[in-house]
C-alpha cells in the first residue's frame, strides 16, 4: 500500500516539481524498497530524456517566407481554374486512353467483315462432296493399280 503511494507520487507531476517532503519520502522509501527504487530511477531517466527531447528546436530557414508565399499563390491559381479544366487535368489521361480504345475497337469491327470472301473461297475449295466421298482427282488410285498391288504381294509370297 505504501509502495503504491510512492509510485503515485512519481506519476502525479514532473519529478523536478515534487515538494521537499515528497522527495524525502520517495528517497527514504526507495532505499528500502527495490521496486520503488527502480520506479524512481525510471522516472528520473524518463524526465531526463524528455527534457533532452525538448531542447532541440528547429529554426525557420531564411527562404521559408518566400516558400509559403509561393505555395499560397500556387494554391490560389489552382482554385481559380474552372471546375471542368481541373477535372480534365485530373482525369484527362484516362478519358483520352478510353477514347483511343473505343476508336480502335470501332475500326476493327468495320475491317473484320472484309475478310469474309476469303473464308467462303476456302469453303468452296473443300466442298462437301469432296470431303464426304473423297472423290477429288489429286490422290485417287485407279482400280488397276489396286489389283496390281494385290497380285504383286501374292507373287512375292
Amino acid at each position: 500500500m505504501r509502495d503504491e503511494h510512492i509510485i503515485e507520487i512519481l506519476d502525479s507531476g514532473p519529478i523536478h516539481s515534487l515538494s521537499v517532503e515528497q522527495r524525502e519520502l520517495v528517497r527514504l522509501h526507495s532505499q528500502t524498497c527495490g521496486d520503488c527504487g527502480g520506479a524512481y530511477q525510471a522516472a528520473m531517466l524518463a524526465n531526463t530524456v524528455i527534457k533532452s527531447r525538448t531542447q532541440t528546436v528547429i529554426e525557420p530557414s531564411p527562404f521559408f517566407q518566400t516558400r509559403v508565399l509561393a505555395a499560397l499563390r500556387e494554391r490560389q491559381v489552382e482554385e481559380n481554374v474552372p471546375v471542368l479544366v481541373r477535372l480534365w487535368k485530373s482525369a484527362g489521361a484516362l478519358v483520352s486512353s478510353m477514347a483511343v480504345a473505343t476508336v480502335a475497337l470501332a475500326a476493327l469491327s468495320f475491317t473484320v467483315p472484309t475478310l469474309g470472301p476469303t473464308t467462303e473461297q476456302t469453303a468452296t475449295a473443300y466442298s462437301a462432296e469432296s470431303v464426304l466421298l473423297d472423290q477429288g482427282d489429286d490422290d485417287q488410285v485407279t482400280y488397276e493399280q489396286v489389283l496390281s498391288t494385290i497380285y504383286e504381294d501374292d507373287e512375292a509370297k
Partner: protein
Amino acid sequence: MELAQLALAGDESAFGEIVRRYSPRVFSVASRFFRQRSSVEEAAQEVFLKAFTQLKSFEGRGSLEGWLTRIDTNTCLNMIRSAKRRVELSVSDLAEDENRWLDQQVADVGSESQHSVEQTLIAADLADRVLNVLAPEDQLALLMIDGEDASIKEVAEATGWSESNVKVRAFRARKKVREAMEKLLKPRIGGAVRNER
C-alpha cells in the same frame, strides 16, 4: 489584428509579415512533434496556408500567436496520427548508442552529470522511441508539462482541451513512459546487482 485585417483584404505583403513574425513560434510548436527539418517545415507551411484560408474566423478576441498555435497543434496532431505508433517498446528495439547511454545512466545513478551535445541527441532519440508508445495527444501533454515546464492551463489554452483532460493525459503519459523506461532498465539493474554479488 491590423496585419490580419490587411491580409484578409488580400494584402500579400501583410501576410508575408505574419509569416516572418510568427514562423519561429510555429516552428517551435512543430518541433515538439517532429525532429526532422523537412517534417517541421511541411507542417509550418500547412499551418500558414490554413491560417490564410481561415483568417475570416479569426475575430481578434485572442492573440494571433495563440490562434496560430492552436492551428499548429491541430495540424501536427493530424499529421502524427497518420504515422504508425508502436504499442510496446523492448530492449531489442534500441540502437547500440542508446543502450550504451542507458548503461552509463545506470552506472552514474545519483550523480548530476552534464550531457554533451551528442549525449543529448542520443537521449532525444531514446525519448522519441519511448514517446512513440503514447497517443499523440498524450505525448504533447507530457512534452509540454514535463519537458517545457508549461502549466496545465497553458497546455489547455494551446490545445483547446479542458484542464482536467490535460491532467489526465499527462498523468497517463507519465505512468506509461515510466513503465516503459523501467522495462528497459530492469535487465541492467538486475545485471548490476548480479555483478555486485
